[in-house]
């Protein structure tokens, strides 16, 4: 078997580990760092797949992974600093990210075959919700929106999606998204078993 293909699978497993871990973390800054590292391995996975099977089909995925990596790591620094200035920078960055996702999503919808336009429209809505959900306060918005996003991405990795004109299942892609969904499920299972913690942590006198 091709070395690059095997390496891509290893990187995929590492991505799964980071993505799974990230949704167990409540602290925003640590979450963004962990998912950012996961996104970086995701990017390298696509690169290795490109080396194994040809870059043509991987370029758009590498662009998407680069977008995720940069977004997560910038948000990591913004939440770690947590100053009015960093928050202002963060919100401006978020708006740029939403704008980029909107343009890229619209182009993807326009260029997709008519039969699957609904799927790509759903994809864009889910991606936008996720980008905003990641930034919103609390632990719930990000987990609800990532579940929606992962479900839609899974659909695009199945024979439902005929974007590239073939009907292959992308097993590793599905596994990565399933890792996110299962991590959210585990998080809520842990959450329900623990004694209820208040969302706002006030200091003792």
């Amino acid at each position, binding site marked *: 078997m091709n070395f690059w293909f095997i390496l891509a699978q290893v990187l995929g497993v590492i991505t799964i580990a980071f993505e799974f871990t990230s949704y167990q973390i409540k602290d925003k800054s640590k979450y963004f760092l962990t998912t950012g590292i996961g996104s970086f391995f995701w990017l390298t996975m696509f690169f290795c797949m490109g080396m194994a099977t040809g870059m043509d089909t991987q370029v758009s995925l590498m662009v998407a992974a680069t977008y995720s990596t940069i977004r997560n790591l910038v948000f990591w620094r913004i939440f770690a600093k947590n100053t009015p200035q960093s928050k*202002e920078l963060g*919100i401006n960055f*978020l708006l740029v990210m939403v704008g980029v996702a909107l343009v890229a999503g619209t182009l993807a919808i326009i260029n997709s075959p008519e039969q699957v336009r609904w799927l790509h429209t759903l994809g864009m809505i889910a991606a936008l919700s996720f980008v905003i959900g990641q930034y919103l306060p609390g632990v719930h918005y990000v987990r609800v929106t990532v579940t929606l996003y992962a479900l839609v991405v899974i659909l695009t990795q199945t024979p439902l999606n005929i974007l590239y004109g073939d009907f292959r299942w992308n097993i590793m892609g599905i596994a990565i998204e399933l890792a996110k969904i299962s991590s959210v499920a585990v998080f809520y299972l842990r959450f329900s078993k623990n004694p209820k913690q208040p969302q706002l*942590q006030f200091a003792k*006198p």
Partner: protein
Amino acid sequence: MYKIISDGGCDFTKEEVQKHNVDIVPFYVMLENDTYLREGVDITKEAYYKRLKEDKSLFPKTAQPSPQDYIDIYTPYLKAGRDILSLTISSKLSGTYNSATLAADMLKDEFPDRTIVVVDSLNCAVGQGLILKEIVKMRDNGYSITKTAELAKKVIETVRIYFSLDSLEYLKKGGRVGPTTALVGGILGLRPILHIVDGTVDQLDSVRGKDRVLNLIEEGVVDALKDDVQDINLSIGHILREDDAVKFKASLEASLGIQIANPVVEVGVTIGTHAGPGALAIAYCKKYETLEK
């Protein structure tokens, strides 16, 4: 017996001022026409906030009491042979502590036998009010001015104060958040929760939903206080939100199983100008008796 004096940051009602026998040095506020008005003397807090709510373009200036204001209020007590314990709003939020300290220094030569102790509350609003109440209790229980100041500093270390703001609008006007943060936060309905850390205002979190935020604050307070609720003193303040504040107090009393002795009060202009109408504040601290050991 020494005299207790505080600036207007303590949010004492007129009744509390009389009952606890303290003097208040008011802050100044300038609404328009370049005329400074004394808070609680020339303009009531309620009138001030209504004006602020009605005129969205208005962002008033506030000013601290001057050293001369302190000299004017200290002098008669010093002449009467009394020492003074002066509590001020956090020195990191206002220059009031400087004014009070300068006045004390200036009066030292004239009254060499008298003592003026200026205590920096490192707090404001109902948080400062709680410290003042502990100081009053110590005075009434016969503690010396030195012992009171020493214990007051221990109380100050235990004070926690949280503000729920109705919007980001006034923080934007005061330059505490950027315009995009305020715009997006407004669209998303985010309500910031502020607290005071080491004397300065910091943002703890933001929450969506006007009613939800009160529930979350109540949960947070109950969690923080449940283990030693009998050892704490607690106070609630608001800005043009009395009904919600009263309901919140009743709900908190039920959750904690205690009666909160302090009345619900209107937050003063220094903090209120930056927090804006609709804000709600809660503060708590340890009673001084628990810190004596």
